[in-house]
């Protein structure tokens, strides 16, 4: 498939903008290249965010992105835009589901089964699942994806002060995981 070649290397901003421009006009080959470029990292993000629903959230987000490609103004990175959509889709789904049920931690460990850090990751998944949805999203965006607080606030659509509160709560909940871990 033509899009497979795009996965081999990371696209620069110009190439990516060109692909988005073509995909916005309905070019499915360009969209396929974008999907292949971003799906792995997006699924890692959504699986941590939404547990077992992670792939569904990623699918929703990519389809929503396909419908709204012409609205991407190219001001931030395409990856950040996808995460914004994914986070909103996740929050919408949880709201629609009643939001009271605790999120089930990811059960399908898949190709992580032989991972030496597996236990720690399971503990992390559980700790994330116990967080509130917005705290979890904020922690993933800041700690997991490396965005700054300002970027994360823009990405989540909340004021910077709110983002800092969310991060402070997430930090407090995650600190016990650091016991015995030396980085």
């Amino acid at each position, binding site marked *: 498939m033509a*899009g497979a070649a795009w*996965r081999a290397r990371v696209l620069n901003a110009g190439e990516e903008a060109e692909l988005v421009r073509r995909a916005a006009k*309905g070019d*499915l080959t360009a*969209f*396929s290249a974008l*999907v*292949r470029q971003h*799906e*792995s*990292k997006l*699924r*890692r993000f959504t699986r*941590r965010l939404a547990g077992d629903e992670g*792939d569904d959230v*990623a*699918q929703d987000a*990519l*389809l929503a992105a*396909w*419908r709204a490609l012409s609205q991407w103004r190219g001001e931030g990175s395409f990856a950040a835009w996808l995460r914004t959509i994914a986070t909103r889709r996740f929050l919408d789904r949880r709201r629609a589901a009643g939001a009271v049920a605790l999120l089930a931690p990811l059960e399908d460990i*898949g*190709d*992580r089964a032989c991972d030496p850090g597996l236990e*720690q*990751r399971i503990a*992390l998944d559980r700790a994330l699942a116990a967080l509130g949805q917005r705290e979890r999203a904020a*922690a*993933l965006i*800041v*700690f*997991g994806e*490396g965005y700054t607080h300002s970027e994360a606030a823009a990405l989540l659509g909340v004021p910077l002060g709110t983002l800092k509160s969310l991060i402070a709560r997430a*930090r407090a909940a*995650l*600190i016990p*995981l*650091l016991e015995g*871990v030396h*980085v």
Partner: protein
Amino acid sequence: MTDDLDRRLAALFDEPVPALDEAFAHRIVALARYDSAVRDARRRPFARVRKEALALFAVGASFVFLAQHGPDTAAAGLGDSISLGSPAMLGMLTLLLGSIAAARTGTGDRGRQQPIMT
């Protein structure tokens, strides 16, 4: 202090990027193709209604124009009005009914949710 904590927490999150899931990527592209087809199918009847409405307007405008600027029918004893039973009026009526039928066909499926492939 907080920076150090955040750095250590970030390290906790550090996990290799999973391999490309071909099946997932194929599914997304297939869904996008399906979504485009559905949107095109929905757009087509509206385009047709628009075209027919434009045609109706053009015919109506021509009709009015000809009624006002055409040959003097009063001289032939027909007055300013056009007979309701005239072929032109029947043509207008047929066009109007056709447009109404097309509009109903075009808007009939608007509220119906299309099945989503999974």
